[in-house]
């Protein structure tokens, strides 16, 4: 049986102390520890570290009720303009929705709704129109472009709502924007339309900055941040040529590198 090298043992000491090594490797590590003073010192430090972690105090018991009351008051209202069972199947409902659009169009409301903002009674009609447009567009590239257009519309709504101090409505638009960006990201991952939406998605970031600058409401700021992260995820990955030496990366860069993918290096 070949014994582990010093470097191999050093790399596994942490797992050894944590009891995470297999029984086939543990005896070899233990044997090396008996012979190597450097690894013994490292092992001793790891044991002290583990003791320190174990000494972190457990909190007192806290009641759930007050926690929930505070949280519930902060939850953004989530409203759906379609009944729940229909939300899941809305694409399959495109023909029915198209008929509904005709009906709505017949009374002239649909087109009048085009410039409606979330505080308008016609806003629901506007969303219905958009959903129908997406539902009847089967070409994937055209669908993606439509989603990018609607994402920009949501951003414009959020900007207008925060400007008018209607932060709750702004959050609703941002959440819809987040959902659209997520769908665009899925399309990008599937290789749909690599050329178009990327630049449009990047332009969303400037608009998000504007929304953030216009409000001091934490809820809006947090939602803006969530949308930003979604935009980051949705952008098609580009292979850039290496330039110069290694660049110091901040946490965001690291996070991006951390996205699960094959052949991850550590």
């Amino acid at each position, binding site marked *: 049986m070949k014994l582990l090298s010093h470097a191999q043992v050093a790399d596994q000491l942490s797992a050894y102390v944590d009891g*995470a090594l297999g029984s086939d490797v543990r005896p070899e590590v233990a044997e090396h520890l008996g012979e190597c003073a450097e690894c013994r010192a490292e092992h001793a430090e790891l044991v*002290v*570290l583990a003791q320190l972690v174990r000494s972190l105090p*457990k*909190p007192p018991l*806290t009641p759930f009720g007050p926690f929930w009351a505070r949280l519930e008051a902060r939850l953004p209202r989530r*409203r759906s303009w379609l009944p729940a069972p229909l939300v899941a199947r809305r694409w399959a409902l495109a023909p029915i929705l198209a008929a509904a659009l005709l009906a709505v169009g017949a009374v002239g409301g649909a087109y009048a709704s085009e410039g409606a903002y979330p505080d308008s009674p016609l806003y629901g009609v506007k969303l219905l129109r958009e959903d129908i447009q997406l539902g009847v567009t089967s070409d994937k590239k055209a669908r993606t472009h439509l989603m990018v257009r609607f994402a920009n519309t949501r951003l414009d709504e959020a900007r207008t709502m925060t400007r008018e101090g209607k932060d709750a409505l702004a959050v609703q638009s941002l959440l819809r924007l987040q959902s659209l960006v997520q769908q665009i990201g899925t399309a990008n991952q599937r290789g749909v339309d690599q050329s178009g939406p990327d630049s449009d998605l990047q332009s969303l970031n400037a608009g998000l900055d504007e929304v953030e600058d216009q409000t001091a409401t934490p809820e809006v700021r947090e939602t803006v941040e969530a949308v930003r992260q979604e935009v980051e995820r949705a952008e098609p990955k580009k292979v850039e040529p290496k330039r110069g030496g290694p660049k110091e990366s901040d946490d965001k860069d690291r*996070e991006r590198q951390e996205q699960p993918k094959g052949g991850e290096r550590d």
Partner: protein
Amino acid sequence: MDQAAPLKQDSQAAQELPFREEAELIRRTVQGDTDGFRELVYRYQRQVYVSAYRALGDHAQAEDVTQEVFLKVFRSLPQFKHEKPLGHWIHRIASNAVTDQLRRSRPVVSLESMERMPASAQKDPQDVLSAKEGREALRRAIGRLPKHYRQALALQLFHEYSYQEIASALDIPIGTVMSRLSSAKRLLRQELRAHLKGPE
């Protein structure tokens, strides 16, 4: 209906929550049913709070972070793909929130902690440093680690995750978990050693 169960019991209870029941609660929450979300929060709040408290050592901060975690969960739930346990996803969000808070925190270091440590400290730091100072040093050191190390370390130290659970929560191979924890602890030991060493 106040809960007050130890971490491990909560963790086990959450793991035993049937997948379908959890899926139903997620569906209800996404549709705007706050009662469904309340049920989900009830099942995971204690675990998140305990780990935040262990990491931050302060009730108010731990409570705030726990609130933020569940707000994030609520907002992001529509995008959550229920292919693995919800708890892993929640704890991943929590570990990020907790370590980000650790990074932002600038704890006041008392004069006492700046005192020169005698040589014997290297053998058994806990004999020399007060437990409180040791914990503060540990927290500061974790806050300074690169994010991917902090994340894995927080899941292990504060959430008491096994290597396998960390791998699942972070979508990385177990070998990567092992190497991240090993590197993180190496950096941590260097940081703590520097903290323990007094001026020459």
